[in-house]
C-alpha cells in the first residue's frame, strides 16, 4: 500500500438516489473508491449497475432529480461535494475532465473542432503564455491527429468516429487534468479504432501522469489497460483488486460468473456459464447481499445479512460472506467451478461439410446509387457489397466478421431480399433468389429468417408478444386458425426457454435478453432452415449474451439450422462459428474455417483485426498491429487492393490491381498478393 500522499481521489461512502424521494432509485450505496496519481482504475459492471452514475456524481453532474445523501469525494485536499457550483465549474474540465461514450453527440456539429478545443483552452488554460491557437494545435498533435493545421478548421461531420473521440480527448486535456474520467470511451468504436484510442490513453497517461478512471463493461479492455479495477453490481462495489490478481482468480461469485460467461474458443464444445435472472431494479430495498438471488453459492445468511468487506491474502477485497474468516468453511472449497455443466457434444454428424450447400452465394453485389441535383441524376454508387461469395451448409455457422461499414449487415439483408441486390447470384437449394419479386419471394420466406441486433427496435411496441410470434404463421398461412397459432406460439416460447404466459404481454415488459429470445422465437416460428443473425448479442450484457449464445447453439444442434452470424466480436466467433469470412470494404478478404482464420490469419487486415481485439488472458495476447487511419468510404475506394493505404506490408503490386482469389487449402481463400509468397 502506498502512502496517503499520492492518493489523488478518495471516495468514501458515496450514496446517491434518483427520482421521487418516496420511491427512490438507490443508484449508489456506500461506494468507496480511491485512485492514485498516474493510475488507471477500471470500474467494471453490466448496464444498470451505477457505473455512469458514479462518474456523474464525481463530476457533480447528476440529473436534476439526483441527490447525494452521504459520503465524501476528495480530490487531493478538496472536498468536491462542499464546493459551490462556481468553484466546481473550475474543477470540471480543469482538474478533472470527462469523455463520453458517443463522440458524435458530444461535439457541437456547427462549430469547427478547432474552435471547440479552443473554447476549452480559453476556459481552463489561463496563465499560460502560449496563445490559444498554438495550444489547440499542440493538443491535437498530442492526441495523434494527423495534419492538425488542416483539421483545425474542419467540422465534426468531416471526421470519423475515432477522430471525434480524439478531439473529445484533446478537449478534456485542455485543462491539464489530474484525473480523466472515461465513460465507455470505446464502446461505440470498432476494434481497430478502439485499439488506437486505448493506446492513446495509455500514452497520455504515461506522458502527463494523470490518473484515469475507466468505466467499461468490457473485460478485455480492462485487462489490457487498467492497473486496478473495481467491480460494481447493483449500485455497490463488490470487489476491488489489481488487474493481474483479478484475472488470475476473481473473488466475488459475480466476478467469477462474469468471467466464465465470456465466450472463447476453448469453450466451444460446452455451454457457457450463465448468470440466471437479471440485474435487480435499483428501486427496491435490498436485504442482505444484492447478488444472492442470482448466486449459486448463496447461503441463507446471504439473503438477510449484508456482507462486509473481506481482504484476501492476494490483496483483493471482496464484499461476500464466502470470504468471512469466521465462517467455518474454507472459502476456496466453496468456489464454484467455472465450467458448470458438461457440454453437449456436437451432434452434427449428419451435417458435415461435403454435403450440398444449403445456400450458395456467388458475386453478390449491393450498390446504392447516389442522386444529385434537381433531376436526381445518378452521379455515383455506394459499393456496399461488392462481389461476396460463400457457401452455407445446414447445421453449420458461417461468421461474417468486419468493422462497421464494411457491408456485413447489407450482405445479410441482401440474402433475404430486404435490400434488393444489384447483381450476383443467391442460390437457395435449386432456386435462384436474386431477381424474385415481393410475391415470388414469399415461398422462400419460410426457410430464410433473420434476427436483428437491437431487440428493442425489432418488435412493434404496440403488438402482443403472441401476435408478434404468430405474425409469420399468419402471413405465410401456416396455421390459419387462431387457436392453432396460439398452440404453436406456446410451443415456441417453451422452446426458447420462456413461459407461455408471455404471449399475452407487451414487449416493453421484458428485459433485453428476454426480448431477444422472443425475436428468436419469431424467426423459428416458420421453421426456417437458415437464420441470418445480425449481431444478435452486441446490444446485450455479457451474462445475457451467454444465455443467447447457448440458446442459439442448442437450437442448431437440435434443429440443424444454418446460421450466417454477422458480428464484430471475435470472441463470439471463436465460440460459435465453424467457418469465418472476413469482410473489408464490401469484399471478403479472407475465408476459411474458424481455426485457420483465428490461429493463422494470412491477410494483413485479418491479422490487424485479431491483434486489436482486447484479450483477457495475458498469455494469449498478440502484439498489436496498429492500423493507421480509418476505413475508406465505399463511394470512393482506393485503387488496387482496397486495404493497401492502411496495410503495413503493402508492396507495389497492391496499388495496381485488386488481388485475385488465392486458394490456400480446401476451405481457405485469401485475397492478397502476399499470400502467394
Amino acid at each position, binding site marked *: 500500500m502506498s502512502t496517503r500522499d499520492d492518493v489523488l481521489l478518495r471516495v468514501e461512502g458515496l450514496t446517491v438516489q434518483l427520482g421521487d424521494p418516496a420511491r427512490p432509485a438507490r443508484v449508489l450505496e456506500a461506494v468507496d473508491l480511491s485512485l492514485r496519481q498516474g493510475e488507471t482504475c477500471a470500474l467494471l459492471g453490466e448496464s444498470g449497475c451505477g457505473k455512469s452514475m458514479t462518474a456523474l456524481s464525481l463530476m457533480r453532474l447528476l440529473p436534476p432529480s439526483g441527490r447525494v445523501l452521504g459520503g465524501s469525494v476528495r480530490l487531493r485536499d478538496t472536498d468536491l461535494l462542499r464546493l459551490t457550483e462556481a468553484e466546481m465549474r473550475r474543477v470540471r474540465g480543469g482538474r478533472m475532465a470527462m469523455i463520453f461514450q458517443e463522440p458524435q453527440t458530444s461535439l457541437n456539429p456547427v462549430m469547427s473542432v478547432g474552435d471547440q478545443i479552443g473554447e476549452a483552452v480559453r476556459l481552463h488554460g489561463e496563465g499560460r503564455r502560449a496563445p490559444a491557437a498554438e495550444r489547440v494545435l499542440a493538443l491535437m498533435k498530442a492526441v495523434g491527429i494527423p495534419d492538425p493545421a488542416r483539421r483545425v478548421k474542419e467540422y465534426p461531420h468531416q471526421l470519423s468516429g475515432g477522430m471525434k473521440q480524439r478531439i473529445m480527448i484533446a478537449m478534456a486535456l485542455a485543462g491539464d487534468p489530474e484525473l480523466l474520467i472515461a465513460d465507455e470511451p470505446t464502446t461505440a468504436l470498432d476494434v481497430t479504432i478502439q485499439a488506437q484510442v486505448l493506446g492513446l490513453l495509455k500514452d497520455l497517461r504515461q506522458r502527463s501522469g494523470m490518473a484515469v478512471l475507466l468505466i467499461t463493461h468490457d473485460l478485455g479492455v480492462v485487462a489490457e489497460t487498467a492497473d486496478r479495477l473495481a467491480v460494481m453490481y447493483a449500485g455497490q462495489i463488490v470487489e476491488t483488486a489489481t488487474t493481474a490478481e483479478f484475472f488470475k482468480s476473481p473473488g466475488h461469485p459475480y466476478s467469477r460468473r462474469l468471467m466464465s460467461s465470456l465466450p472463447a474458443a476453448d469453450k466451444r464444445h460446452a455451454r457457457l456459464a450463465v448468470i440466471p435472472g437479471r440485474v435487480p431494479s435499483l428501486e427496491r430495498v435490498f436485504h442482505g447481499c444484492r447478488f444472492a438471488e442470482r448466486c449459486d453459492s448463496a447461503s441463507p445468511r446471504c439473503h438477510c445479512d449484508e456482507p462486509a468487506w473481506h481482504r484476501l491474502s492476494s490483496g483483493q477485497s471482496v464484499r461476500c460472506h464466502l470470504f468471512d474468516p469466521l465462517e467455518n468453511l474454507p472459502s476456496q472449497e466453496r468456489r464454484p467451478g467455472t465450467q458448470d455443466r458438461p457440454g453437449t457434444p456436437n451432434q452434427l454428424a449428419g451435417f458435415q461439410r461435403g454435403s450440398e450447400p444449403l445456400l450458395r452465394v456467388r458475386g453478390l453485389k449491393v450498390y446504392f446509387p447516389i442522386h444529385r441535383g434537381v433531376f436526381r441524376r445518378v452521379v455515383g454508387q455506394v459499393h456496399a457489397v461488392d462481389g461476396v461469395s460463400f457457401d452455407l451448409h445446414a447445421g453449420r455457422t458461417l461468421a461474417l466478421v468486419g468493422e462497421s461499414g464494411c457491408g456485413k449487415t447489407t450482405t445479410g*439483408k441482401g440474402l*433475404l431480399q*430486404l435490400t434488393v441486390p444489384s447483381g450476383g447470384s443467391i442460390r437457395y437449394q435449386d432456386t435462384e433468389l436474386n431477381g424474385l419479386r*415481393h410475391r415470388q*419471394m*414469399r415461398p422462400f*420466406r*419460410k426457410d*430464410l*429468417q*433473420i434476427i*436483428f*441486433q*437491437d431487440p428493442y*427496435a*425489432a*418488435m*412493434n*411496441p*404496440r*403488438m402482443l408478444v403472441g401476435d408478434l410470434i404468430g*405474425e*409469420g404463421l399468419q*402471413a*405465410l398461412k401456416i396455421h390459419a386458425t387462431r387457436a392453432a397459432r396460439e398452440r404453436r406460439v406456446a410451443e415456441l416460447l417453451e422452446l426458447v426457454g420462456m413461459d407461455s404466459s408471455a404471449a399475452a404481454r*407487451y414487449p*416493453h415488459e421484458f428485459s433485453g435478453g428476454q426480448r431477444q429470445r422472443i*425475436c428468436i422465437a*419469431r*424467426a423459428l416460428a*416458420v421453421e426456417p432452415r437458415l437464420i441470418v443473425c445480425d449481431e444478435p448479442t452486441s446490444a446485450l450484457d455479457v451474462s445475457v449474451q451467454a444465455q443467447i449464445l447457448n440458446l442459439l447453439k442448442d437450437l442448431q444442434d437440435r434443429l440443424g439450422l444454418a446460421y450466417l452470424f454477422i458480428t464484430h466480436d471475435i470472441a463470439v466467433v471463436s465460440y460459435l462459428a465453424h467457418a469465418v469470412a472476413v469482410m473489408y470494404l464490401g469484399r471478403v478478404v479472407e475465408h476459411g474455417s474458424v481455426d485457420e482464420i483465428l490461429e493463422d490469419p494470412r491477410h494483413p487486415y485479418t491479422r490487424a483485426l485479431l491483434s486489436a481485439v482486447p484479450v483477457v488472458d495475458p498469455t494469449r495476447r498478440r502484439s498489436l498491429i496498429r492500423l493507421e487511419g480509418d476505413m475508406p468510404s465505399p463511394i470512393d475506394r482506393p485503387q488496387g487492393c482496397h486495404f493497401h493505404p492502411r496495410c503495413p506490408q503493402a508492396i507495389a503490386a497492391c496499388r495496381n490491381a485488386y488481388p485475385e482469389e488465392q486458394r490456400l487449402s480446401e476451405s481457405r481463400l485469401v485475397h492478397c498478393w502476399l499470400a502467394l509468397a
Partner: protein
Amino acid sequence: MPLIPVVLWTDALVYLLILLILLIVGFALYTVRHEHLRAPWLRVFRSRVGMATSVLLGFYVVVGVLDTVHFRLKLDQPATDVSTPIRYAPEVLSLLDVITSGLRERQEKSYSAPFAAHLFVKEAIEQPDGTLLRDYPRLVHGGAHLDDPARQRGLDIAWRALWGVLQGLLISVMSLSGLIWMMARARGESVGSTRAAILAGRGPLPWRYAFAMLAILIVLILVAAELSAKYHIMGTDKVGEDVFYQTLKSIRTGLLIGTLTTLVMLPAALLLGIMAGYFRGWIDDVIQYIYTTLNSIPGVLLIAAAILLLEVYMSNNADQFASLVERADLRLLFLCLILGVTSWTGLCRLLRGESLKLREVEYVQAATALGVGHVTVITRHILPNVMHLVLITLVLDFSGLVLAEAVLSYVNIGVDPSMHSWGNMINGARLELARDPVVWWSLTAAFVFMFVLVLAANLFADVVRDAFDPRLRTAL
C-alpha cells in the same frame, strides 16, 4: 308534429364526426386492457391542466352540439282547418336558439353598451307633453323593469348577480354530489370515502380540478342567465341584436372550422403521407410534387378564389337554396374544404418522414422477412406507430384553424356575412372602433370567448403532446 328536423350539410358532418368519436371511444373502452393505448390518455387526464381544460372544452362542445340540432317550428294555424297541409315556419332554428330565445327575441333598435338601460346614441324622443327632446332613449328590453335606472341599476345588478351565484352554488353542489354518488357506486365504496378521496386529491386522477372547473362554469352560466334575463350583458350591436347571443352562436362556427377541416384533410394526409414514405420511388416523387406545389400557392389566394367561385355559383343558382341559413351553411362547408385542402400538407410531410424512418425499422424488416404483405405492414406496423403524431398535430392545428376563421372572415373571405362568427363580429366592430366613445363590446366579447377556447385548446394540446410524444417521455 310540432317541428320538422332540418339537417344541414355541416350538421350531417358533425353527426358523422360524433359517430366516429363514439366508435373510437367504444374502441377505447374495449382497449382499456391494452396498456399502451390507455397509458397516454391516462397521462393526459392525470394532469391538472388536462382535467380542467377538458371540462372547459366540453362546455364549448355542448354549446356547439346544441346549436347543431336544427329544425323548423310549426306555424300557428286555426285548429279547425284539418284539410290544409301543416305549414312550418321558414326560419331554421337550433336547440340553442330555443334555449336562448329570450336573448334572440329581445331586439333593440341599435347599439347599447353592456348592462345599459339606454341606447348608445341620442334620438329625438317625443315627450308626453308633445315636445321633442334629444336624449338617450330607454331600451325596449334592457333594464326595462327599472323605474329609475340611474339609481336602481347598480343595486339591481349586484342583487341579481348574487342570486345567480347562490343558484349556481346550489346547483353545483347538487350536481357534484350526484357525480360523486355515481362514482362511489361505480367503485363500490361509500359516498363519504369517495368524497374524501377526491377532495384530498388522492387517487390516480385529479378529479377535484375538474369539479372545481365545473362548479365555476355552472356559477358563471347561472349568473349570466340571471343577468341576461333583464339586461344585455354584452350590449347590443348595430341592429340591436344581443352580442352575448351572437358570441354563443359563434361557438359552433369556430368549432366546426376547427374540426371539420381536420376531418376533410385527415384521410388525404394519412394515405398520401404513409404511401410516400413507405413505397418511396416514383410514388414518393408524385406525392411530394403535389404537396410542394400546393404549398407554394398562397393559401389566402386559393381560399379567396374558391369562395368567390362559390359566391358566383350561389348567386346564379339562388333558387336551389331554400333559406339563407342553407346558403351560409354551404359556404361554411366550402370554407372547411378549402382550408382542409391547404392544410393537409404539413401533416402529410410529417407522416412521410416518419414512415421513411419506420420502414427501415427492424420490426418492419422482420415482418417483410416473414412474408407479410404491404397492406398488412402499413395497417399493423406503420399506422399505429404514427397515430401519436396525427393526434398531436390535430389538437395543435385546432386552435390555429379557429384563429384562421377569424382572420379570413375579417378580410371577408370567410364565412357568410349573415352567419354568426367571431370573425364577422370583429369585422363588424372594426368600423365602430373609430367612434367616440368607442363601441368596444362586440370586439371584446368575441375576443374573450375566442381567447378562452384557443387558450384551453392550446393547453390541452400541450398536455396531449407531452403524453403522447415518446421522446418527451424518456427525457424525464
